[in-house]
């Protein structure tokens, strides 16, 4: 298999080696190996039920009973993510969005975004109870940052509205804003374009680029919208039935006969 190396940075940030995840005898992910380099935008594609979200759940440690190795390399060196509890993954620089939005309906958009900054705070419960000057200052800084991030995404004017009742396109942006608040090195997007209209999807292309440029992150995404994948991804990894099919530049993957076969009958995506 010929790997297309990205130009510039060559340091790997995320490496999967022989990842296998079984659910009651069914192999949802089967011996998948994959390397994501720093600064890349990588797409993970495959037909429905190919195991894409399972891969994400393993990487972010929601599933722990996988076999194989998931290694993260950041400025502090390499970590075997298996040793990292699910709530600590974000501290190592990985954040994610969810396929079916996972927001707090009865909090404002700004407050939802602030949940993403959870690990960036230094004050604890006691300082919050007493609202010490330090807690107050920190809260203000974080709120300012949240407004900046929301402004970058073009929804700062909506910050005080409740999440409940907002259109899908806005909520998707709120989720992205929440991940950005955590100052991630690697953002994992689970179907960012699902549920968006054409216009919003087009804008998403540019947005994903801008996120990489402005926040210096790597992006790993699952997406069914092939136009988006072809436009924004540096490299694409195709899987089917949990198995690796091919990896390479979007155009190469698009022409790959195995990939085409996997999608047979799903031509409308291509």
């Amino acid at each position, binding site marked *: 298999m010929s790997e297309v190396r990205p130009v510039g940075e060559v340091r790997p940030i995320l490496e999967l080696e022989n990842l296998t995840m079984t659910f009651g005898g069914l192999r949802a992910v089967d011996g998948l190996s994959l390397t994501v380099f720093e600064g890349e935008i990588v797409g993970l594609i495959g037909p429905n039920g190919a195991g894409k979200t399972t891969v994400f759940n393993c990487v972010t440690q929601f599933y722990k009973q996988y076999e194989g190795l998931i290694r993260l390399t950041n400025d502090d060196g390499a970590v075997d993510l298996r040793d990292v509890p699910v709530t600590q993954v974000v501290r190592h620089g990985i954040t994610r969005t969810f396929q079916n939005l996972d927001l707090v309906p009865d909090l404002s958009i700004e407050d939802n975004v602030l949940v993403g*900054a959870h690990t960036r705070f230094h004050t604890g419960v006691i300082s919050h109870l*007493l609202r010490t000057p330090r807690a107050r200052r920190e809260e203000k800084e974080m709120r300012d940052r949240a407004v900046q991030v929301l402004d970058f995404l073009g929804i700062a004017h909506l910050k005080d509205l409740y999440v409940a009742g907002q259109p899908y396109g806005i909520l998707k942006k709120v989720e992205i804003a929440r991940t950005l608040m955590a100052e991630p090195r690697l953002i994992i997007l689970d179907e960012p374009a699902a549920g968006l209209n054409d216009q919003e999807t087009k804008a998403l292309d540019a947005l994903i680029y801008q996120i990489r440029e402005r926040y210096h992150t790597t992006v790993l995404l699952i997406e069914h919208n092939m136009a988006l994948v072809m436009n924004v991804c540096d490299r694409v990894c195709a899987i089917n039935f949990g198995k690796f099919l091919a990896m390479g530049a979007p155009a190469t993957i698009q022409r790959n006969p195995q990939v085409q076969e996997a999608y047979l009958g799903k031509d409308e995506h291509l």
Partner: protein
Amino acid sequence: MNRRPTAQAHGRTLLAAIRRRPLLQFALLAVALLVIAVLPHLGLMRFSTMSIYAYTAIYTVVALGMNILLGFSGLISLGTAGFIGAGALGMGVFLRMGLPFEAAAVVVLLISGSLGALIGLFSLKVESIYLAIATLFVGEILRQVYTSVPIFGGEFIRIGAVRLFGVFELNQIFQVERSILYAVIVGVLLLSMVLMHHLVRSRTGRALMAMSRSEHAAQAMGVSLLKYRLIAFVTATLYATAGGILYALYFQSAPTRAWTLNVSLLVIAMVVVGGFKSIVGTFLGAIIIYGLPNLLLKDLLGDISYVFSGALIILVILFYPRGFVYVGHDLRRIVSTLRTRARRAP
């Protein structure tokens, strides 16, 4: 808009300003409650009525803790009565042992706080109806201990006069001192409202809400379920115990058999009827569930008052599921729609 502001408009902006400032609301509420401390001395109210307000304030403190659990953290406890009892009876035991009031309060809070932490640990394993009933176990265990263990005495532990900060001796038999005790309780109520307001409008409050409403996203963002379940249960337990301590302070005697499941359910009802997540609403809930029946209905309706409060709970839940705190909001909306209609109609 070049109209001259009328007195009415002034009034409206003042109300709007109050609405935007929760801390001001708490302060106004506390002032209103403090006025009650004076009324009996002017012969405008019975002293027993002041005691009902005191008990309502105590219930509010307890229910605030319950609101942290129910409203913010999506958790429930049926063992609240046990912790109120722990506060009241624990104070009785430690004061009799000769501890100063403040030291006794700290010891009692530490003990129940650790019990609350245990429940928090438990809640990671056990959920839904199983968790609710597990907390009922804790409440029942405490109740059994209070009724059968000799150190808690028979029907009552008598506490008698209490010395605050080692200087102020207050005995509730004297009318002036009883009013001072009442004022202390209102002070603690104000403090617990402010602390809770701070807590829920912070990183901690957001984490609690994220934990209950979007558990997976919360975890992905670094919210440790263990830590925040502990925080939720410990805070709720401390509020309940503080309520018990205030009970001991005001009534200066603590019953052993009063801490049943029904008390815990009443506290939950206060939150439900008053409004999830609302601090002022919690006070409204306490007034409706405890204050109203005892202040008004007992005199008006006699024995039916209990039926009436039960029916009220059912009706409010059926027809006002968001809680009483929204009454003002909804009334305003109705008034403004009526106004626009009236304006449109020539």
